[in-house]
């Protein structure tokens, strides 16, 4: 048994230590907002926060997450949407939507660390794949979220 803290809740999970955090989140805890896309840290669909920092959970053994605050897409807002989520709606970003949990988690972590990123900084840090090609809207939405956060 391992003890994890996910979205503020502490729980015991039955999993081998080398199980990727992704599968514990999805299959053991049934928080399915975090997605599986590649399993090799190449797409970002599985992005969650470990102590506020974006990680690709398919490539983090669950044992490494013990003792950290794990936040998933389900845990970033309590009732009220965050600026990033608001911006995602107002710019009509998602298409199929499958990559978007990971995108939103990656962008949320970026804006926490760097509230006004330049386009180059965005390019460097948001390397997730969106097969539907929502990138032009993602870029607009990031700038919009920066603005919304500034107003808040």
């Amino acid at each position: 048994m391992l003890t994890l803290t996910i979205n503020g809740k502490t729980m015991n999970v039955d999993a081998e230590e080398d199980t990727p955090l992704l599968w514990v989140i999805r299959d053991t805890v049934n928080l399915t907002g975090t997605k599986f896309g590649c399993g090799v840290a190449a797409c970002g669909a599985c992005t969650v926060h470990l102590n506020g920092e974006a990680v690709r959970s398919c490539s983090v053994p669950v044992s490494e997450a013990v003792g950290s605050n794990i936040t998933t897409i389900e845990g970033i807002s309590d009732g009220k949407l965050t600026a990033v989520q608001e911006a995602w709606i107002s710019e009509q970003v998602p298409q199929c939507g499958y990559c978007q949990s990971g995108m939103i988690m990656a962008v949320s972590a970026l804006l926490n660390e760097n509230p006004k990123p330049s386009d180059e900084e965005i390019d460097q840090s948001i390397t997730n794949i969106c097969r539907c090609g929502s990138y032009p809207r993602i870029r607009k939405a990031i700038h919009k979220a920066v603005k919304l956060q500034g107003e808040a």
Partner: protein
Amino acid sequence: MAIMKLTRRKFLIAGGLVGGGLAVAYALGDSVPDNKALVSSAKQGEYPLNAWIKISKQGEITVAVSQAEMGQGIYTALCMLVAEELEVDLALVKPEPAPVHPVYANVVAIMDSLPFSDGHHNGEATAGAWAMKQVGGLLGVQATGGSTSVRNFWEPMQQAGATAREMLKQAAAINWNVRADECIAENGIIKLKNGSKSSTYGDLVEQAALLEAPQNIQLKSVNARKIIGKSQQRVDIPAKVTGKAEFGVDVVLPDMAYAAVKLSPVFGGTVTDWDENAIKTMPGFIKAVRFETGVAVIADSFWRAKKAVEALPVTFDSGTNVHLSSKSIFALFENNIESDDGRSYSDDGDAKAALLLASDVHTATYKAPFLAHACMEPMNCTAKVGDNDVEVWVPNQTSTLMSWIAEQTADVPAENVTIHNTFLGGGFGRRLETDYVVMAITIAKELKNRPVKLVWTRENDIQHDMYRPAALAKFSAAINESGMVSAWHNRVAGPSVTRSFVQRLIPAADTDMPDNTTSEGAADIPYQFENKLMEHFPSPTAIPVGYWRSVGHSYNAFFTESFMDELAWTAKKDPVEFRMAHLGEHDDFKNVLRKLAEVSNWGSPLPAGRGRGIALHESFGSIVGQVVEVTIGPNKELSVDKVTCVVDCGEVLNPDGLISQMESGIIFGLSAALFGEITIENGQVVEENFPDYDMVRLENCPEISVHLAPSGRPLGGAGEPATPPIAPALTNAIFAATKERIRELPLSKSEYSI
């Protein structure tokens, strides 16, 4: 000047139908189908008024959507059409997946709209038509593909909304003892014209549901529209920013087990031996399953299943395809293309004779690779097999087909099959296939009465796809003294998608027949040449091929629009003017081209190292023109700076939705042009996952501007037409910047780095 032989309208429908694999249709008969199909899904207090609309006593309006939502915004589009006629705010209308029912797919309508008897391939029966008869006739088809959704549903959904509205009015009229035309519908309320009485839809629906559906209802005039034609927020988006949207892979059921597979790496290979005892003590192990092409492990979590199946010792017999390679496949194409077995899909004048007489013949050979779909959500399917029934949860583009295959695989009566569709994490044609459904049910049969969720890894997905066919094209053309193309001969060799698709479903089928997916985008180009011949040389291989966003257009547009550009430069003509000069009477194409030249600042000077390229292509009933601007560094560092896109798809339902589909199609095609290649070696796929099957990311995504140029032509598709022109527009831009002509995709092959 030769005149385009085929009747355009019919051809367009064909492109759409065949392009998507199977047609989406519903017979637009004299009246809207009644509510029977929805009665069983109606909850307490909910009343179906026809096959599409349910209204609850609280006034909640539910629209049954038989189309899969895979990102194209179809839920929103169909709800908009209903809301418009029903006189309610879009926010009040909720989509719900329609049950599998023949009313949502009428084979007669599909067959009626087939164009196969008159043109494009000279009266022959085609594989497409054959497929439709066999598969469609057998099942009634309920599928999403070929950019057909809005086109097929536009009027029926409006009719459904209007019929419901009239029934509500009638119910009110009876209550108030007035004539129905004295009542008006407004914002979910029926009012008496003089304003003296009013009732909500919720109050009236129970009575309205008992009434006969009225016939011949007038739809709203274009001027009276409040929703259609205006950008609307998509109804599915809020759930997609909170992680709440449920995709197939997210299905969680009580007592559910998980399965992972290991499949024969070589196409056509089979399992000859295994040692299931070797893994029985692994954590979470439930059962190992052996089937013809691979093995599966069922465990209590996906990760445990995956680890166990990786550890499971298996011996495969590679079969006869072990020597197959991309090289041998292209050699086959080269060989076939020189044979006399070409099938002609368009033939004006006498191109061969004209080329023999011409003093200067320009020739070129083009190649396009196999491509994988790589939907963001890997293939998955959850199945629960009971004693005499099967229940399946699967994100898919064709529930009817899934239902049929489930019935066959589980060997249960048709009425004991239940299919649940979910949101699709991308489709692009991959989810018209049934392979992973067969696999899931085969595995779940071993664990009776317990749901099993089969999830493919990305490696499974990349290596066991039904690929966009590889193809080879050879062109010969002559240009006359006035700089016009006097003869054009285009030969294309490659496998046929429809044939491969149908053979997978009905292995005994003889499908050696014409297939429009091999010639679309090549036989039907808008340019008027005195002598024009387009032939296809069927070249089946053991690599399974399938419908991939824009199908044959995806490579034919690259071939034809690149070669057209070559001819323009050869004739020393501006590429826009050269195209314009060959467009004959096609005013709609000319409009798009003119607008594109204007909004892209075509002709304005660019600094050294930069270039601008153009492509113009029609597919699925929509004309799309694109201009790409590139910058090339001294060591072939390529930056795709900007894409300007002009689209004419007839009337526009949701402008912002259309724009997002254009952006999406462009980026999809750009990923393919820059990086996309599935390589075959030793009968198997070399690529495994995103690191070697890469995609455009934020960093290399160009600025995209989309302009709408509706001309009033018939309604066209949106999901696919932006994909075909991007590759030639890009390579034409590279030529403009460097004078290097790219004749083979992807660009990484020509040592460009991105």
